């Protein structure tokens, strides 16, 4: 049943080299509409590099990436964003001196249509546009339950809340696919539970596919529909969480080393 869903993102035979180091070697997988795809692997397996290839920070030497049938391998990063591919980076990448609200508003600029001339005078169409953007941002604030920090400067917030604003920034883009790079790193159990719940809600409410890179195996096994496992730049397995748990290659490469 799951397999019948339409493929949104197609990664075909990607190979990425930095000089003599092969970061990714012949990796292929698909992301289907409405699913949460987990991307796991030991440190240095190439998970973040793979995301960097998708949103075009890196240039893979071989292979192609298709988004909704369109080849995106040669597009520049800002065009990727305009296509609706949003990414939350490892760590926090926000304007530390701005408030949470302003951080979210700033991302909306790609949707704003008025010229600099109109925007300089805060009335008429420009004002209407701003009100409309603010409404959308407030919906994200409500969704992520960050009302209480709306007007606080991001730099003064604890890490867990900053991460939440970061996720909010990606959502404010109204993405059609979301790439999350370790959104729960460094969080305590309760914060992780919250973020996991938001991810599931985003996936089901907005019906957008999510690619999730995460180290916490409990979370990945719980919320992902399918999982792709990388080791030293090679895809060693792909399947449902149940299949991955039983896959001997995965156990020896990843899970096995955790037990010991």
């Amino acid at each position, binding site marked *: 049943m799951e397999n019948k869903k339409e493929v949104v993102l197609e990664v075909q035979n990607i190979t990425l080299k930095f000089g003599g180091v092969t970061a990714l070697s012949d990796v292929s997988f698909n992301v289907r509409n409405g699913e949460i795809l987990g991307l796991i692997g030991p440190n240095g397996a190439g998970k973040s590099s793979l995301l960097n290839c998708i949103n075009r920070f890196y240039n893979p030497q071989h292979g192609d990436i298709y988004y909704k049938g369109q080849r995106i391998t040669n597009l520049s990063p800002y065009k990727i964003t305009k296509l609706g591919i949003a990414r939350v980076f490892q760590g926090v990448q926000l304007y530390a001196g701005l408030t949470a609200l302003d951080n979210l508003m700033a991302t909306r600029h790609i949707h704003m249509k008025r010229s600099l001339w109109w925007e300089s005078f805060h009335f008429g169409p420009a004002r209407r546009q701003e009100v409309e953007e603010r409404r959308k941002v407030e919906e994200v604030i409500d969704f992520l339950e960050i*009302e209480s920090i709306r007007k606080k400067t991001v730099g003064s917030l604890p890490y867990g809340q900053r991460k939440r604003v970061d996720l909010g920034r990606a959502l404010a883009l109204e993405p059609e696919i979301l790439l999350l790079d370790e959104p729960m790193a460094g969080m305590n159990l309760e914060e992780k539970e919250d973020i996991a719940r938001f991810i599931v809600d985003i996936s089901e409410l907005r019906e957008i596919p999510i690619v999730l890179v995460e180290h916490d195996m409990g979370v990945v096994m719980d919320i992902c529909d399918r999982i792709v496992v990388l080791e030293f730049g090679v895809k060693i397995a792909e399947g449902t969480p149940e299949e991955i748990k039983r896959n001997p290659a995965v156990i020896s490469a990843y899970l096995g080393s955790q037990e010991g």
Partner: protein
Amino acid sequence: MTNVNIDRSDSGRTKEGGSLDSIPKLFRRMCQERSDSVAMRKKAFGIWNEYTWENCYQNVKHFALGMVAMGFGKGDKICIIGDNDPQWFWAELAAQAVGGISVGIYIDSVPEEIQYIAAHSESVFALAKDQEQCDKFLQITDQLPNLKKIIYWDPSGMWAYKENQWIMQFDEVLALGEKFDREHPGFYEKKIDEVGSDDLAILSYTSGTTGFPKGVMVTHGSLIWGAVQMSKNCNVKSGDEYLSFVSPAWIAEQLLGIMVWVYHGITVNFPEEPETVMQDLREIGAAFFLFGPKQWEDLLSMVQIRLTDTTLIRSLVYKMCMPIGYKVAEYELARKKIPAFWKSLYSICMLICFRPIRDYLGLRKLKIGLTGGSLLGPDTFKWFRALGVNLSEVYGASEITPVSIHGREVNLGTIGHLTDGVEAQISDEGELLVRSPALFKGYYKDPDTTAEKITPDGWFHTGDACTIKDGRELIYLDRVKDLLSLKGGAKYSATYIENRLKFSHYIKDVMIIGDETREFLLAMIVIDFNNVGRWAEKSRIPYTTLIDLSQKQEVYELILPELARVNETLPKESQIKRFINLPKEFDADEGELTRTRKLKRSVLWEKYMDLIDAAYGGKNLVVREAEVKYRDGRKGKIRAELKIMDVGGNNI
């Protein structure tokens, strides 16, 4: 129960005709009088949305008729659980308008608690704010034979329940009601006229410090009487801004938020989220509101924390002004004339220090700040008085509505003077007995307990140990059953000591241990993780979790002087001799606190028996494994080595 005579001449407006002996009648009158002025504000998506009295009237009417259309009738109950929102108030008024009864449930109740209350009250509808609360009801529908529908008002996260036959949206009920109204014009008004002062208005389930919660049956007349007393003492004027924060499941919010609202036509403001209340308070500039001691203490510690981060000059100004504030507050509390010298100094302090602080906290327009639920520490109390904030204790219970309140006459150490028409006496056991025109009708389906609590001639056993000063002022000691004695016979009040200790912003919670078999007092302390954590960061002490931080030798040494300070106020034979920093916080979900954050002593006592024994046995270290329950139902174990430390006499 006597019929309550409604005299509203004291509010400056005289009324003629039409008896106003029930809440829906009062509400209808208020809506007719001021249809287009603002009745409520609710902040949503960052904007204060206004509702006029006419909006409210229509919503209440249609919700009531919607329920009627689904078979709701006289004497039926609706459970309501959720944050303070207009819908909460509307649903209650709607139920009452057609002769029904509302049953408020605290928002953080777990499904088992909700199941008990909903089943015991035979509720036919459940109004639950959002997905989280609906989920709780959905887990227990098979144990609630009377329940027909679960109605929600916050649609976020409800997409998954579209097909669920139990679930219904608030607006759908309104639409049903509108249709019903078209088909049966005049029905609603006729129903309102049928509700009288002696009908039940709410079932208020007590927080259950002991055993199962009991449903207190409160009539329209009692609530109206309570509202009259409150507004008289708080000097409420129509149009005053009120901030609705404490749960309407608690009688205090029933009286202030709902009753004073429909009685006086104040404007009720609902914060956006419980977490935003401090900012929202500032935006509203409320004239009066009620906070529990916890929130008042939070306000104070907010200022204390900001002071540690502020510039030298500002903290200097604060340090210079506060003693002057205390001095003047002292004169005021003693009702002495303030000497001109102090008065002029005070007005300077007001300008450069107190007013900015009050502004920062959102208390600038505050006429009266009420505190209730449990006793506020005297130090917090004095601090607010020094800033010129008119803080007032209010004491009461669901069973008798307000008993005493400070109002304009504040005496430190008391919990206010008796309200008009209330009689009080102290029994031989030291228990406060109260007789009031607003006595409740009994506990729902529990005549035995009712008979235990009310004497044949109408005195209600409060269960509180009090003394009466000058015939009309109450001094609260403790719950009667909680007054404890030590081995030597020395009596002490655990709550009193705990409140004094909680004044320290390093201590979040504390429980005092000691009984007839023990010779001294033991304190089990939960440190305030945020504040102690901040202190540790500044002192360059590395830590990971609460478990780790609480067991640091330095943290023990930080807590020690706090205990010594409180010990100075205690008689020698009942001083704290030892203490332990607990590795986890007290948690209502684990049954360690009631929903109003009171300690459940017997539970805690049993849980920490090994620690207590070790402490009295003279040990200095205990190894302990605690079981923790995660939200998804899994259980885990935490192992910790706990230190026990001696307080000693004056070893600061």
